[in-house]
């Protein structure tokens, strides 16, 4: 298997990526406001990682989404698709104006991503826990076809409650699927509250190691650090790799950043609920999901 090390991330390129991520966050908010519904916390929290993928990490061609040697990016927690659509639009897979059609009838931008609706999506997702398995199938096909592309799969952290996730994790560990790299959006929240209150996930690193995976951690908002983690993952041959990416849900949204801190002293239940509601509805301007 060929390792490929990504092109070096120079200062100017890094600054450019950071700017694109900011733009992405703005576009996410505009898109959601236009749609009137949709998920906000995850997309905003993952803007840096998606920017890093579409503008640095992925070997891909927006004008040729079927290019057989492309890297595959699988989104398992499909509900954060607004950020994916935004990054894809920025990259040229679709016109920026089309973002205004999110969740509307006859749109290619379905509320949860549908593979056949928009070239470049790779899979259909929404119901949680189904992305890793698909990513495994795609990674296995790469080996069968003697292809060098990487298959990346992004999952949520609450999503790890689903049992079928662990079926896939076991399988990947057993079969040492080294061309598979998983990224967990570790933002500590799920619908009913903190992950560690609803269904504790820690010790997460230990769990994955027990299943035969190599584990890396990264600040999900530090693009340079994240790219380093990807490079390290590329160099691991004996196992699949998971990058636990720590993110702040709603990152970059002023009123969130000002009112509410997710690291350090945790907010109490009341504060948490209020802030989450505010975030989920963008301060009452869109319909809350799952109310």
């Amino acid at each position: 298997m060929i390792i490929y090390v990504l092109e070096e991330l120079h200062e100017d390129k890094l600054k450019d990526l950071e700017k694109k991520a900011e733009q992405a966050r703005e576009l996410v908010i505009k898109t959601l406001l236009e749609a009137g519904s949709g998920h906000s916390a995850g997309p905003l929290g993952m803007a840096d990682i998606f920017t890093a993928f579409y503008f640095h990490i992925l070997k891909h061609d927006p004008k040729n989404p079927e290019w057989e040697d492309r890297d595959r990016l699988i989104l398992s927690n499909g509900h954060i698709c607004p950020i994916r659509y935004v990054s894809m639009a920025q990259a040229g897979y679709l016109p920026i104006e089309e973002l205004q059609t999110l969740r509307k009838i006859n749109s290619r931008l379905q509320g949860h991503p549908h593979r056949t609706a928009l070239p470049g999506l790779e899979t259909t997702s929404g119901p949680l826990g189904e992305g890793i398995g698909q990513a495994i199938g795609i990674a296995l096909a790469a080996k069968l076809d003697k292809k060098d592309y990487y298959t990346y799969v992004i999952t949520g952290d609450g999503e790890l409650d689903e049992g079928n996730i662990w079926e896939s994790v076991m399988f990947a560990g057993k079969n040492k699927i080294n061309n598979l790299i998983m990224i967990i959006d570790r933002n500590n929240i799920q619908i009913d509250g903190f992950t560690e209150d609803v269904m504790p996930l820690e010790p997460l690193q230990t769990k994955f190691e027990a299943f035969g995976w190599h584990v890396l951690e990264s600040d999900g908002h530090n693009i340079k650090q994240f790219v380093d983690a990807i490079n390290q993952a590329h160099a691991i041959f004996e196992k699949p790799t998971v990058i636990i990416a720590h993110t702040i849900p709603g990152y970059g949204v002023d009123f969130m950043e000002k009112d509410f801190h997710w690291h350090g002293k945790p907010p109490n239940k009341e504060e948490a609920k209020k802030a989450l509601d505010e975030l989920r509805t963008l301060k009452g301007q869109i319909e809350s999901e799952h109310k």
Partner: protein
Amino acid sequence: MLNPNLKLNEKLFDADVETAPTRAGFGTGLLELGEINPNVVALSADLTESTQAHKFAEKFPERFFQSGIGEQNMATIAAGLAESGKIAFISSYATFSPGKNWETLRTTAVYNEANVKIAGHHSGIMTGPDGATHQATEDIAITRCWPKMHVYVPCDAIEARKATIASIHINTPVYLRYTRDKTPLITTENTPFKVGKLQTFWVNENPKVTIFATGYMLYYALLAAKELEEEKLQVNVVNVATIKPLDEEGILEATRISQADVTVEDHQVEGGMGSAIAELLAKTTPLPIEFIGLQNTFAESGTPTELIEKYGMDTKAIKQAVKRVIRRK
């Protein structure tokens, strides 16, 4: 009489008629597919030999994937392989696949339009001693309701091999229903098989009733027809090997001549092949119809013969249904 054009097994009614399990047809069909098409891959959830996928697994180990007892994972991996241009066969007991992994298949195979073929084994109460938890009796209902789904239920091991091979002629999901025990060979290698086309296996000039049967139960329907003939009561018997897409023309044609139907399947009467036919008739030419199958109940452990008799699905029950439907004409 047996339809001479279909080259059926002339020894069908012998006491020592040749038998084979339809899952054997899957095993040989899958192996053949592996030989002719390098894109065919197969997965099993710890039931490789029981579902007869082992022949493929032994010959093509690099194209066979073991998911362990994880049917949802098996489904999503298959979807991923299919998304990458493979034709992915998944094989398990029908209660687990498409049972346990129903939503996973819905999202990642059916809605996703991924080329996944679902082999559901141990279908029907004829699964026997394992009992109701392992007897798939709602699997036709939960798959035929999927948009654009194909559902094939072969009547014997020979037809099972043909159906397995035919399943790759479309690029979208197919559900293939197989059974565990040996059942009589009704067809021969020379019997034509066409997806989506009914065939009348027992023909008469003036049938009072048309019996539509699917799967191995076709044998019981044919036995009933033969016995009824000796009682001077003419019926036709039709093999419904493709439940979806339903051969609507074929059904209307087969029904026109008798104006009364009995449907026969090893499945709940609610939602199975009988329901599919009733839906069509209700839209076009409503007429009396009797449903043989499980009547709103699960079965239990037992031998196939005991169970089919206890649950009102044997030759005697079929004949009674024929007489009942005639009274309703």
